[in-house]
């Protein structure tokens, strides 16, 4: 078919009218369920926590919409059950969606079974993410000229989460395959630029700029000398610092998030012993093997943080600066493999490919792990790492 626009004279005669192209197929059922738990002290032994309330788990169930339909047809009379450790768990309709309450166990398989009133059966299964979390080993701060640190990079490594039932804390480096989606949040809002040296990072959302383009990096050498941490780095291992600066400063920035596939035998390529360095969190000495380390960094608001309020008495606008260490953190989500695939497919489908008709040209449906339907049954564990240099 030739394009209409190729014969302008005929435009006078041509007409364009909306057409609703409803295929005749029956609409499939869509399932959306992500079992979730977030970071906290009660993970493994909730019974030790007084008045523990297991987190709510939600499931949405509805028919896909035809092009001519504008209202979603929700299914409210289905039998929904998840089986797994401590289960089975029945989901109950709460007026808008299905709800249950339980704490998913790490590294365990969960199965979803749905049976609708009209006899449709859907099923799925997934393995909840493993019990690892990201720990910061060393924080490197890149300060602005006015001494308000806005841009941070730090060495991080994966570690098994600690067992609160043990006196004190036992740190254990733990190598497991996992899928991580990482965002840098400033007061809950994702920052635009985030970066990593992890070799498993997905570069599909790489920006045009690099770490050294961040506004506060331009005179890093002078700034860094003002901080003891970097003096130590330079003193102890000038070669490490050279390798760090050359590689890190030219690292590409990603837009708003990182998707990382971490293999169990991850090797960062670093080989210097770092026994002299300690993790600042909790004041414990915990060495980490260099091969486990990777750098994670984000640009938390390149300009000086200023906020303002209106003084109720004078009616004047007052500006103040928020201490930089408040409200900045990394949100790290460990995901089941199916949810990772599904989310990647979603992001791909809605990224801008450069020409307006890409969603039209593509005739592929996004990934789904629902047998007999569409959507996703997945799991995620949400953790956060606060940005702090300890003062």
């Amino acid at each position: 078919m030739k394009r209409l626009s190729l014969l302008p004279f005929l435009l006078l005669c041509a007409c364009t009218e909306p057409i609703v192209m409803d295929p005749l197929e029956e609409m499939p059922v869509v399932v959306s369920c992500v079992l979730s738990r977030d970071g906290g002290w009660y993970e493994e032994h909730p019974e030790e926590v007084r008045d523990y309330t297991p987190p709510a788990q939600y499931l949405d169930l509805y028919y896909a919409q035809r092009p001519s339909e504008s209202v979603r047809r929700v299914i409210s009379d289905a039998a929904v059950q998840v089986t797994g450790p401590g289960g089975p768990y029945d989901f109950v309709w709460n007026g808008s969606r299905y709800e249950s309450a339980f704490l998913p166990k790490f590294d365990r398989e969960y199965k979803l079974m749905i049976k609708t009133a009209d006899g449709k059966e859907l099923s799925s299964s997934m393995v909840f993410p493993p019990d690892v979390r990201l720990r910061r080993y060393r924080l490197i701060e890149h300060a602005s000229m006015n001494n308000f640190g806005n841009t941070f990079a730090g060495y991080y490594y994966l570690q098994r989460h600690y067992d609160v039932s043990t006196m004190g804390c036992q740190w254990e480096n733990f190598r497991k395959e996992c899928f991580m989606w990482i965002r840098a949040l400033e007061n809950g809002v994702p920052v635009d630029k985030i970066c990593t040296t992890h070799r498993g990072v997905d570069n599909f959302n790489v920006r045009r700029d690099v770490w050294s383009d961040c506004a506060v990096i331009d005179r890093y050498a002078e700034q860094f000398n003002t901080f003891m941490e970097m003096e130590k780095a330079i003193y102890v291992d000038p070669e490490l610092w050279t390798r760090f600066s050359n590689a890190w400063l030219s690292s590409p920035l990603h837009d708003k998030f990182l998707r990382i596939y971490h293999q169990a035998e991850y090797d960062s390529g670093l080989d210097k012993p770092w026994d002299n360095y300690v993790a600042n969190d909790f004041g414990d000495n915990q060495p980490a093997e260099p091969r486990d380390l990777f750098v994670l960094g984000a640009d938390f608001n390149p300009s000086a943080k200023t906020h303002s309020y209106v003084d109720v008495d004078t009616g004047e606008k007052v500006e103040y600066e928020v201490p930089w260490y408040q409200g900045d953190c990394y949100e790290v989500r460990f995901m089941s493999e199916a949810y990772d695939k599904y989310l990647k497919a979603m992001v791909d489908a809605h990224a801008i490919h450069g020409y307006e008709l890409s969603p039209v040209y593509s005739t592929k449906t996004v990934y789904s792990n629902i047998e007999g339907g569409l959507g996703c049954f997945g799991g995620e564990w949400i953790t956060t790492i606060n940005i702090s240099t300890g003062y």
Partner: protein
Amino acid sequence: MLFLPAFQAVSQELPRTDTLPPAIKEDVRSGQKTLSERILKISDISVMATPTGEADFVKFVQTLPGVASGSDGSSSYYVRGGNMGGNVQTLDGVPIYGTSHLVGLTSAYPPEVVSVAEFQVGGFSSEEGNLSSSHIKLRSKDGSFDTFSAKGDVSNFLLGGYVSTPLIENRLSLNAAVRVSPAGLEYKAIKGLMDPEAVSIKDADAAIYDLYAKLKYRVDANRSLSLTAFHSLDKYNFLMDSGSEDKMTWNNAILIAQYDAPWRKKGGTLGVTASFNHYGNSQGMIKQMDKTSNDLLIRSLLDETMLHACVNTMAGRKWKAQYGLKVRAARFNPGSARVLKSTGLFPKTSSPLVKNVHWNVTGTLHGQLERGSTERSMLRLAGRLNYNNASGFAPEASVLLRIRFFKYLGLEATGDYLSQFYHTLEGIPLGWSLDMIVPPSKRFRPEQTRQAYAGLYSDAGNHHFSAGAYYKEMSNLVYFSDATKLFDSAIAGWEENIEVGTGTSRGLEFLYEKTSGLATWRFAYTWSKTDRLFPNLNKGEIFPAKYDREHIFNASASARVLSRERLNVSIATLFTYQSGHWETVTAGSWWDDNFITGLVEQKFYTSLNNYRMPPYIRWDISALMEFTGRKHPQALNIGVYNVLNRHNPFALSYDPDNDQWKQISLLPIMPSVKYSISF
């Protein structure tokens, strides 16, 4: 009434010593030659109503049994379930690859330069291969060796001039034609009248023309040498209000040298043809998307040199024989490109256009034996042995058997085993319609077709009936599997996104026509079912072919209503009903809310070609007034295309702002006028 057809096997000419005075010439009668072959002449098509007012052989072909039309008004046609790329149009044995003007509304060559056209759909003769569906054989007219004549005409979108003249009386003649479209000027003239809100074009330019010339030199009474040149161009450039720019161009440049001479003493003829054939097309789009300038391009270039020697002679008393050798050397350079200039967040890698030259050589030995005649019984056996440097040997065979049982009843059967070397890619993104012609390779073998047809026919005076059935299998069909990757692929990547599959088609064909007298009419009906199967597409399940039109009905009639010494008036009408074609559309959608994209609508697809468009219905009427008996005869053809003003789909367009599909109907009720004057 006696039926005395004067059909002549135009593919097998025997030399004749011209003892007749120059004023008396043999002629070929148009009409159905066999159930699989039809002769067409300009008188058959000159009275038809067409969108442009120009006579067009393809528009006539689209009304025959077994033929499905493409989009409204276009020159695309699909024969017995094959692809458009399976059809070949040749001019004196040389393929024309870019066959249309004006976005498919008319053919690229002026029909006035054609003396006779033959349309074959089965039982193919041996001299032409590299096809899998049909062959429109165009034979050009020679210029007059003794009389000067010229003609000029003007229609909706074309201005034409023709001249036929002796350059050296009885020795050297010239037949030439030129057509130019003033579409670009027409646009500029009416631009000020158009509502800027209704039309999104900021500026536009177009260049459309074709040039033709044939020199014929009579060496002696039996030998001749001819030199033909043909060039056509379509070029369009549009600047849209949105800032994007669309451009499209395609062109042909063909040179043909032919030598005809007698062959030995048995009354045979030898024809030697050397030709050079250039075809190029490109379609580009510059779009601004999210701070990124995307310069997208699809291009296809083909340069083909051919040498063909063909002998037609008698083999014994009753058998006619044809044999020959043809060598084609073709240079392909297809590709796509995407060049990005971005200030946005996603620095996609540009994929610029680079040379992607493939050389392809095909040698063909062909032969044919034929006995009998179409009005009695006939047998034709044809074969080709091909060798292609990329894909190796590929034999072909065709058979046509025609038996008249009784005076008014006969049986015809054909069988074909065909190989087509050049692939035309399907599946190119919606809105990108230029064909990308690519060569065969060890991975993309020549398309192969196996088809069989059997039918009964009856001739009762001027009335002809036929009813038949066909079955066709196709293999090594190619399909561009992921349209979104067309521009992201590296230049060589077009091969990485091609799927290979098969197709089947079966159908019933009915034809009734009255072919002579003051009034003629024709009714043609086809029922068919055409599928495709690609193991890696559509979950490996069968899906309908895009132009699988289940029911096709065409009814046409023409009549001479006035015949005077100085004025003849003929009227004609055509009604067509065709089942809608298939499109791939979103089956549905759902809403997903996640921490990365937020709330988004996600579409899903169930199968390829899952939606049948509304039926295609059209009624045309026309009148031809011939002012004869004057010093300068004139003709006026007035027609109305699509009298019912039905909004048949020409194209689909997606409006991303409103998330809505729109059907574009290019040809509502459309008057056409063509005036010509002869000198």
